[in-house]
């Protein structure tokens, strides 16, 4: 088990190195991607600032607190984007074109193999913006950065990331039956926009959906609200851990079912 894990970590490092080398081959493409992402984020923040110039608080949340939640939401999204971006390609063309064949003829887990194949450096921009936004709220929001909270913060991040990865894995796996599912992934993925804002601004239907069905609320608002208020640690932090593990387990199950239903493509 541990030898296996060590080997997987080693493979992961090698693949990341491969991708950095690949990126060096396409510098301009990388720079354009980074620029357009930063522009998008800047527009979002300006938009938030304009709204808050009209209203003092949003159901009790101040502008700085909303910025903290927004910044927090970017971290798991960025981590998933950084490590698991290749899942998009599964639904868009890897299965449809029959390119999934090669993952099945290698002696490593196909899901792992797909995921490590792409290290999406573009996501570093998201990560940096997220950290900057969180940093900018220091002193303006009442967070008590105790040792425990710092540890909880570091623990909750990978689990929140797993929610993104789980949603993408399930929707990508649909392609094994339908050949293409990229648009389904896109549809579900877009729900994450709801998670950037406090869930109590939504009606109960949307709230239920983003809490229990497509649990993106656990990637941002719930854990972030714990750090902001110190309330409900069991639900806000514990819930993130439990929901993400359950979701990812279901995702792996669906994925494995999908792999045995895979039909390849004629050559």
């Amino acid at each position, binding site marked *: 088990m541990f030898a296996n894990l060590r080997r997987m970590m080693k493979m992961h490092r090698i693949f990341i190195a*491969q991708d950095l080398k690949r990126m060096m081959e396409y510098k301009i493409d990388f720079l354009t991607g980074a620029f357009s992402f930063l522009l998008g984020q800047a527009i979002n923040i300006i938009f938030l600032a304009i709204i808050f110039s009209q209203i003092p608080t949003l159901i009790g949340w101040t502008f700085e607190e909303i910025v903290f939640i927004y910044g927090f939401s970017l971290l798991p999204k960025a981590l998933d984007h950084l490590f698991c971006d290749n899942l998009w390609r599964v639904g868009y063309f890897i299965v449809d074109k*029959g390119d999934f*064949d090669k993952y099945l003829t290698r002696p*490593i*887990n196909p899901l792992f193999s797909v995921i490590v194949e792409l290290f999406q450096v573009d996501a570093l921009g998201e990560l940096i913006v997220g950290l900057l936004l969180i940093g900018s709220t220091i002193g303006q929001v009442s967070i008590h950065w105790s040792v425990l909270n710092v540890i909880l913060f570091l623990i909750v991040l990978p689990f929140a990331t797993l929610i993104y990865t789980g949603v993408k894995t399930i929707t990508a796996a649909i392609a094994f039956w339908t050949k293409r599912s990229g648009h389904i992934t896109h549809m579900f993925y877009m729900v994450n926009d709801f998670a950037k804002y406090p869930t109590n601004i939504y009606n109960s239907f949307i709230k239920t959906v983003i809490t229990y069905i497509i649990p993106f609320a656990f990637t941002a608002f719930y854990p972030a609200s714990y750090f902001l208020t110190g309330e409900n640690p069991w639900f806000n932090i514990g819930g993130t851990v439990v929901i993400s593990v359950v979701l990812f387990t279901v995702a792996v199950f669906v994925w494995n079912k999908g792999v045995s239903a895979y039909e390849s493509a004629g050559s």
Partner: protein
Amino acid sequence: MIYAENLKKEFKKTIKQPGLAGSFKSLFNPKTEKITAVDDISFHVAKGEVMGFIGPNGAGKSTVIKMLTGILTPTSGQCTINGQIPQKNRKQYVKEIGVVFGQRTQLWWDLPLTETYSVLKEIYEVPEDRFKKRMDFLNEVLDLQPFIKSPVRTLSLGQRMRADIAASLLHSPKVLFLDEPTIGLDVVVKDNIRKAIAKINAEEQTTVILTTHDLSDIELLCKRIVMIDKGRNVFDGNLHDLKAKFGQMRELCFEAKSVDGLLQKLDYKAHFRVTDDDVVVNNNGCSVNVRFNSDLIPVADMLGYTLSQVSVNDINVKDADIEEIIRRLYKQEVDVNA
């Protein structure tokens, strides 16, 4: 070594009605149809054997290969390779096989070839010293040196194919599956690849299963042939048997000087007293193509008669392609069954 027993694979296919309205209809009320791509195929390949797996397009060759390599799960039936079932314990199984699909590549598209090999070395856990020896060997057999530092996307098709074959052999597999390894290559490259496959088979007793449409691949490499058509096994034996059994079809091609009365002058059937099955004439203006059974009509007689009847610019005789043999073979099967 390789046992395939009653392999069967069915695909579900949605039948789409034509037009936009049809698309909507099939969206809400999809009609599906079962397509049997492979129907009850069995064969056995011994260790160290090179088996040619042939059949026309859509016969089910690739589907069989994909079941043997563990990519597809058979609808029914089973295959065991070296005592292992590919779909069970897949990770262990694929360490013992190498796979090349001529139409795809497993190389890292944007990176130099050497990078692909060092990643594969990690994936297959090849120790450093064995990796070095292996690379030397593959370099010698497949001549990778001239392009080993170039990004894969800049390689020519022939170079890429050699690189892909080397990639599939890096971990010294016991079985090598090659799906159309010579497709789209020129004669010289084809020849090099055939030599490399023959050498690897001879030196390491690697069992090879290869699919191809090129009869020369079969003639130069395979002692054993399994032929399928419409998902069924139609022939299993060696090339010699195949030719002895189904007649040596040859093709005579020539360019006549004049098109006037060309076909009237050439009455092969009456002259050699053979049936429609044994001589087929096609022409496109002056260029004529005659397929004939050289067991019944010796090549010399064929040439002699043709040249005595018409004056030609250019003439040559070649083996008929594999499709022709399959066509005859399949026809014969149907006749036998009827």
